[in-house]
């Protein structure tokens, strides 16, 4: 991640921008490292944030499963990322810029040297887990498209395969910059796509993957007929707030340093969230009659999605425009699923795919050479060159993620069964799949009145 211009110093090579009389350094900068440590923890906080955001939006009978899809993805992806995912994404290219060497950093044990294993000015092993957490958020985002109806084990199998076959290659293409004798991916280096923190790899990728899965799994029973109201909008708003907080780690952390670039991206991230909120609310007020809390939370996220690739390329006013446009357009786009009849339950397409496209393509329009990534878009006299590069990046990632995720989802459905049986879907996936219910509103008798207390201890069974 980070800006492609100038490229990141390679692992263990000199920082070439230092004055000539300085000795060559591969040293860790403690300030930069401190910021990336904090940023990594902030990105991790986005996982429970997303779980709350999504969990509040489903019906009360499926909130636990909704949250578990995020927590399950978190666990599976971090394990696979350590074993082989990071190498696939950030190992030396095995040819054509398509994939990293899967064995180069397998297990991450190769990154334990404090002198040699440095990316820029931060420890490579920290860079590795920071990137792994990006994969976690992207994978968890996909689950919003298949609320209420996916078997949990099948979801874990899918998201594991998706990590290795969809996310890791895409991250290699757009995030892995060539430097020194390290050869990275093709979209970042050959094409010159600007994707600061993941408009393509995170937002478009999750949106396209979600759309594919929604089509493979089919609509929820009663979609378009039964009311499927969000069961707890206070959770949604709390989750959205946590996402925004974590997003500072996601975006400003992608500067990989505690400097001016991080500061600029911090500000653009703040402004785009605010403008996105207003954009969505204004459209709602005039189209639907009322400004809603769900609209505020959704608009905030839409603005943040759009600023994710573009946070390093815009002026503050540009960030306001970007966020505002994303808020309005995404608010209009969430209705598409009813028109075209696909059940993207929590609008991963309407918010993340559409918002990701706005942010990725918007760099080609609103990008300015005054900002850290230093590229002029169309509105700043830069012509359509960068817009063309952005369009290539967006289209390639969209098509790849859609096709491969769809194939993976189909394979999982055929091999082990992805979709829950109708009876369990109607009665509630929480109880059917996890053996739990989220809420007990009965103060005296308990949720299942007439039960007989603890039947037996499964962890310490009594001897007969």
């Amino acid at each position, binding site marked *: 991640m980070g800006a492609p211009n100038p490229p990141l110093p390679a692992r263990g090579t000199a920082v070439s921008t230092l004055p000539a009389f300085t000795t060559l350094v591969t040293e860790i900068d403690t300030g930069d490292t401190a910021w990336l440590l904090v940023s990594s923890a902030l990105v991790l906080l986005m996982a429970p944030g997303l779980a709350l955001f999504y969990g509040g939006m489903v019906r009360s009978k499926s909130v636990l499963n909704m949250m578990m899809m995020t927590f399950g993805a978190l666990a599976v992806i971090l394990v696979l990322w350590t074993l082989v995912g990071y190498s696939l994404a950030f190992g030396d290219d095995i040819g054509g810029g398509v994939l990293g060497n899967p064995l180069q950093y397998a297990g991450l044990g190769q990154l334990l040297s404090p002198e040699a294993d440095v990316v820029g000015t931060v420890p490579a092993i920290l860079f590795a887990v920071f990137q792994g957490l990006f994969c976690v958020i992207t994978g968890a985002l996909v689950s919003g498209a298949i609320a209420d109806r996916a078997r949990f084990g099948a979801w874990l199998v899918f998201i594991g395969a998706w990590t290795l076959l969809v996310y890791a290659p895409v991250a290699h293409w757009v995030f892995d910059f060539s430097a020194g004798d390290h050869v990275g991916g093709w979209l970042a280096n050959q094409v010159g796509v600007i994707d600061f923190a993941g408009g393509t790899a995170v937002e478009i990728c999750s949106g396209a993957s979600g759309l594919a899965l929604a089509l493979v799994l089919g609509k929820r029973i009663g979609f378009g007929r039964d*009311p499927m*109201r*969000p069961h707890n909008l206070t959770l949604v708003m709390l989750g959205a707030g946590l996402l925004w907080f974590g997003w500072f780690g996601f975006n400003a952390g992608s500067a990989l340093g505690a400097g001016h670039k991080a500061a600029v991206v911090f500000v653009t991230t703040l402004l785009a969230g605010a403008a996105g909120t207003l954009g969505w609310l204004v459209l*709602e007020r005039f*189209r*639907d*009659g*009322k400004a*809603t809390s*769900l*609209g505020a939370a*959704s608009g905030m996220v839409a603005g943040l999605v759009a600023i994710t690739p573009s946070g390093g390329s815009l002026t503050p006013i540009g960030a306001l425009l970007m966020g505002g446009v994303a808020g309005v357009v995404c*608010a*209009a786009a*969430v*209705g598409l699923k*009813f028109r075209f009849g696909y059940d993207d339950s929590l*609008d991963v397409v*309407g918010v993340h795919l559409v918002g990701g496209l706005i942010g990725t393509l918007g760099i080609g329009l609103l990008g300015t050479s005054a900002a850290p990534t230093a590229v002029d878009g169309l509105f700043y006299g830069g012509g359509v060159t960068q817009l063309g590069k952005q369009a290539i990046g967006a289209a390639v990632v969209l098509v790849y993620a859609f096709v491969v995720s769809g194939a993976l989802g189909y394979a999982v459905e055929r091999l082990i069964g992805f979709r829950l049986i109708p009876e369990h879907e109607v009665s509630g996936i929480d109880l059917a799949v996890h053996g739990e219910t989220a809420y007990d509103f009965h103060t005296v008798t308990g949720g299942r009145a007439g039960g007989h207390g603890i039947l037996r201890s499964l962890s310490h069974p009594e001897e007969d």
Partner: protein
Amino acid sequence: MKLVTAVVKPHKWDEVRAALETVGVAGMTVSEVSGSGRQKGHTEVYRGAEYDVTLVPKVRIEVLVDDHDVDDIVRTIVSAARTGRIGDGKVWVVPVDSVVRVRTGERDEDAL
């Protein structure tokens, strides 16, 4: 003995309770319920999708009364619950065979 059941608008239930107290009724069972009648429900919009919410929240009040108090109590409830607008609810009366007060074992009229 009769069981008087009233389904009223939520914001009127407190007035109904106060009015019942003034005519000497202290005991009642109250529950929050939802239902539909001539009053239309309302619509809610989530991310641009409009949902028709047909069930309207109401409060159900149940009172066990002596036969000769029934008319008074029904009149009291109706006047306290009425707003004159659609959706004010209903009051109905059904006969009750027997009643026992759990604490004392008193039966029927003595148990009211």
